[in-house]
């Protein structure tokens, strides 16, 4: 898993290594500083030797200036390397997602993909920076300081061989015990979030049912749970500081006790004694840093797992070897097609259809009759579970996916316009489209009228989610966008539900007149949207109940009749 993630460091490997080098240098100087600061007193001030004070002072100035320089450089490179790493991770994930099929996306859900690309990457970025900065600093500090103590007095260094393992054990024990407790705190945070969100979002329901007291009670029980769990975790973690102090103080006492004997015995100078004590703090502090890194790492493991999941997902729809780029015509043949989203739960069963190029086909059926699923199979947004679909007499799986989708324009039920001008949005259909092209398709989709009313025309800015145009206008723009592709087949998946019936009829009329060779498939709830189609497919629970002309269906098909009579013509404005 780590290897997979580390791949994304790429060009920032050099910067990461530079960080490590500069940190090593910085630590080396940092370890020298305490000894110099004590020397300046012992060898200079105390013996009134101004020259020594000057010499050591100048050395100290240089050492700290260099330490500053290395600290600066390591800080800078660590920032570059970690944000570069995060940039690459986001890049890799985003590119991978572009290869995802519909079912890949649904597996993760788009909100979860967003979190993985943002929060999780951010977590890893922080961990990475911490690792390259402190994971080197702490052990180096430990080793250098221990080495210094060893050179001063090897017997005194034995103290640390006893105290350091004890402290290390305690710190890691606390970290290990506290981590699951913190995880349960974060889980309770989710409950808290949920409770607040429900109330903020559903405040009208809470107030209209006068349930404020109940909600407060519910919230209090969640917040008590957080209090309890957090207390448990924190009680443990706050032991760190007193334990640290206990260990440092104990070492100081022992060093003073043993050291004073050495001093009196003449094997140690007083300056060396204070030096050893200074290093004691550094040695033990580095253990503290190590335990901090340890905690950060375990916390970021779930984020890492979520990212790797995205990177390792195999796209379910891929180009075959044939990669045909030419789609001959808009004829569609379904032979024995079945489809299941999840294993063994067929939502489409034994579909057989033969649609001629240029036909206008309507599809009706209740919620859950799999109308959308049926049409999504045509441009390979999903692959059939069994059977086959042919367009222009070639199996859809033999086409190059891009060519296939360029020939089959689907106007999805969940329409999306992107922030940008109308022209930007239309150009999704064809990058090179000219104003004349815009005019042509907008006329067919009946957008010309309202666009011309906007002061900025095609340059009118569409807000995110297309909130500044009405539902009907949005749907018509999406149709125009699809037409710009010059498709062989155009599919409207409930795409005129918010368009008034009159305009709806005009659109269908111009479809017939302006694009006669294009196969048109129209899914609708509204009977008026499909009654002038050449033929209509009636879907019921994933099966074809009938496929015939509207007149024949009205005579023979019960479902069609039922829908027809429930919607006296024109009574329905919506859906």
């Amino acid at each position, binding site marked *: 898993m780590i290897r997979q993630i580390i791949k994304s460091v790429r060009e920032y490997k050099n910067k990461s290594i530079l960080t490590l080098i500069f940190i090593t240098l910085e630590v080396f100087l940092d370890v020298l500083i305490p000894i110099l600061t004590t020397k300046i007193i012992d060898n200079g001030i105390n013996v009134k030797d101004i020259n020594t004070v000057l010499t050591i002072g100048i050395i100290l100035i240089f050492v700290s200036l260099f330490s500053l320089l290395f600290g600066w450089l390591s800080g800078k490179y660590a920032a570059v390397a970690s944000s570069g790493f995060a940039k690459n991770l986001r890049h890799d994930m985003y590119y991978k997602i572009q290869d995802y099929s519909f079912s890949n996306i649904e597996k993760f859900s788009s909100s979860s993909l967003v979190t993985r690309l943002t929060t999780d990457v951010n977590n890893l970025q922080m961990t990475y920076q911490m690792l390259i900065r402190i994971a080197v600093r702490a052990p180096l500090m430990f080793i250098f300081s221990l080495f210094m103590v060893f050179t001063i007095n090897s017997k005194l260094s034995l103290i640390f061989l006893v105290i350091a393992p004890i402290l290390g054990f305690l710190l890691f024990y606390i970290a290990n015990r506290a981590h699951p407790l913190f995880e349960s705190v974060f889980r309770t945070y989710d409950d808290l979030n949920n409770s607040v969100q429900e109330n903020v979002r559903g405040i009208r329901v809470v107030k209209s049912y006068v349930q404020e007291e109940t909600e407060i009670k519910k919230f209090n029980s969640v917040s008590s749970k957080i209090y309890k769990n957090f207390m448990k975790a924190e009680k443990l973690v706050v032991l760190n500081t007193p334990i640290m102090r206990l260990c440092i*103080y104990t070492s100081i006492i022992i060093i003073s006790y043993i050291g004073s004997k050495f001093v009196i015995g003449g094997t140690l100078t007083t300056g060396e004694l204070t030096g050893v004590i200074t290093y004691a703090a550094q040695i033990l502090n580095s253990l503290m840093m190590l335990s901090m890194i340890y905690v950060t790492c375990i916390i970021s493991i779930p984020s890492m797992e979520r990212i790797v999941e995205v990177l390792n997902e195999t796209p379910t729809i891929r180009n075959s070897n044939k990669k045909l780029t030419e789609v001959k015509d808009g004829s569609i043949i379904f032979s024995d097609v079945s489809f299941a989203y999840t294993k063994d739960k067929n939502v489409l069963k034994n579909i057989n259809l033969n649609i001629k190029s240029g036909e206008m086909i309507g599809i009706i059926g209740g*919620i859950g009759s799999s109308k959308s699923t049926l049409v999504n199979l045509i441009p390979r947004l999903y692959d059939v579970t069994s059977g086959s679909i042919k367009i222009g007499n070639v199996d859809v799986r033999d086409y190059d996916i891009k060519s296939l989708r360029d020939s089959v324009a689907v106007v999805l039920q969940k329409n999306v316009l992107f922030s940008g001008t109308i022209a930007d949005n239309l150009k999704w259909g064809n990058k090179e489209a000219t104003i004349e092209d815009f005019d042509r398709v907008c006329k067919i989709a009946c957008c010309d009228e309202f666009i011309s009313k906007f002061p900025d025309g095609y340059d009118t800015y569409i807000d995110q989610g297309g909130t500044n145009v009405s539902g009907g206008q949005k749907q018509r723009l999406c149709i125009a966008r699809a037409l710009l592709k010059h498709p062989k087949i155009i599919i409207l998946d409930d795409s005129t539900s918010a368009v008034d019936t009159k*305009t709806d009829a005009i659109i269908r009329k111009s479809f017939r007149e302006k694009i006669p060779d294009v196969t048109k498939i129209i899914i609708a709830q509204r009977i008026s949207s499909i009654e002038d189609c050449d033929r209509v497919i009636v879907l019921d629970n994933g099966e074809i109940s009938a496929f015939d002309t509207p007149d024949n269906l009205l005579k023979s098909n019960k479902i069609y009749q039922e829908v027809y009579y429930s919607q006296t013509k024109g009574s329905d404005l919506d859906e």
Partner: protein
Amino acid sequence: MNKKSKKHTLLRLIKYITSYYKVQFIIILFAIILSSVCHVYGQSFLQTLIDDYITPLIGVENPIYTDLWQAIGWMAFVYAVGVITTFLYSRLTVNVSQGVLKIIRDDMFHHMETLPIRYFDDNNHGDIMSYYINDTDALREMISQSIPNCVANGIIIIAAFIAMLFLNVYLTIVIVIGVLFMLTLARFIGKKSSKYFIARQKTVAKVNGYIEEMIDGQKVIQVFTHEDEAKKNFDILNEELFENTKNANTYANILMPVMSNIGYLIYVVIAILGGFIAIKFNLSIGVIASFLLLTRGFTMHINQLSQQYNSIALALAGANRIFELIDEKSEENNGKVTLVHAIKNEDGSLKVSSTYTGLWAWYNPDNDSLTELKGDIQLKSVDFSYVEGKKVLEDISLYAKPGQKIAFVGATGAGKTTIANLINRFYDIQDGIILYDGIDIKQINKNDLRKSLGMVLQDVNLFTGTIMENLRYGRENATDEECIEAARLANADKFIEKLPNGYDTIITDNGDNLSQGQRQLLAIARCAVSNPPVMILDEATSSIDTRTEKEVQEGMDKLMEGRTVFVIAHRLSTIRNAKAIIVLENGRIIERGNHEQLIEQKGKYYQLYTGAFELE
């Protein structure tokens, strides 16, 4: 946040803490002071130990250790006190910080529930949510870490400063100048860093927005084979984010090495100056040595103190937002008229009953009168605007007799939903009067008013819990049978029974696992359980397909029987049988009448009905 409000917020926070945890707070302060004193004393005692106890013994034959051992024993005692007090304040701080957080969260939520609907309409929901987690978390860090740190460092700094003044005034001045330089530099770096952090925050928002929009529209991207463009645009934003993050982190990273090394430089300057003074003016060596030791501690602790600056600023900004929420004005509820159980006397007059009778009455304490709850609603020349000067409703007059169904039709923004908001007093009218059973609704206790009005909205909100619990939301003591019956009425029973756990299926995330149509059915059933005399249905069936709606309609008809109902619907088939249809345009009533009358008028309604006009 300016300085004054920062100070104000801090004081208020401390007041919050002391009003609940006064004793513990004082013990913590003492423990911190004692522990820092022990820490500093222990460190400086080391010098005494060396100078007064060890050095005299050097070279002495048969040295007598008793005094030395006693001194070390004393040091051990001081350190022991240090460890104990450190433990004490760390442990108590957990109590106080967690306790205060719980109190603040509960206060916040309790207060939030009392706020008027306007607050929720005007404020970003994400912002409100972040008060509960991000802002309180920043507070926790401040109470449990920053404040103890500041107190401890502050004490040491002050003590060191006083000691330095006693030792040598001139050298102290030099140090102060050095420290001022250090702090200015820290401020400069901090400013740079926060400039890039703000830029970074903005880019983060941009990148998140792009990712959200694109991932949400990923299917459209695929249908239009637009992947390459999506990648290209992403790379541009990603690069921008990288630049800002890099700069922000660089400045944050270099702060520490810059500060601590400048601390060493100050030390060297003092050492050299001190050396000269000592030799030239024949000052005591001990004074200079002690002064140097203090210098190190002084700069180190100033360094540590300045590290707290950012987290304190962050926490105070958070605390400020929390207090803003707590200071937000609650919804007023001055209505005296309440809803009571009633029984009819033989002569037909009403009497208050202490138990459920099925009959409700409005009780007015002013004249000790009872009025039967019937569901008669009247609006008389009502004006309303959300923002002053921009009228949303103008001169609306209408009435609904008990049991009548009144429908509102009109384009988005015509004011249909606003009328519903006014009847249950989510918002208060500016002009005119609304009467409920002849009583001005401003005189009715809001809770009782709302209990007597059922609402089913287009956006269904369900709560975490089982389906049964959700159905029971409006009437806690409803029996299972009553809930199931209501579900049957709304035609929700079919899909509920198909769920693996039936009525015990747990709903999470606002019913994420249900379709919009199913959620609407549940909301209708929930309203049926609460059994109100007046119902407001705001696009309650918009997501139910026409075939299912026909089935729901039967249940709805049964549900509406004997109740006053206000219906707002897009789909005209839903409202055809209404007693009166009111067509709204730009906040005014432009047509009213029943279906046949309006068709005959050949006005707006006729146009809508024949499909010649688009509603949205």
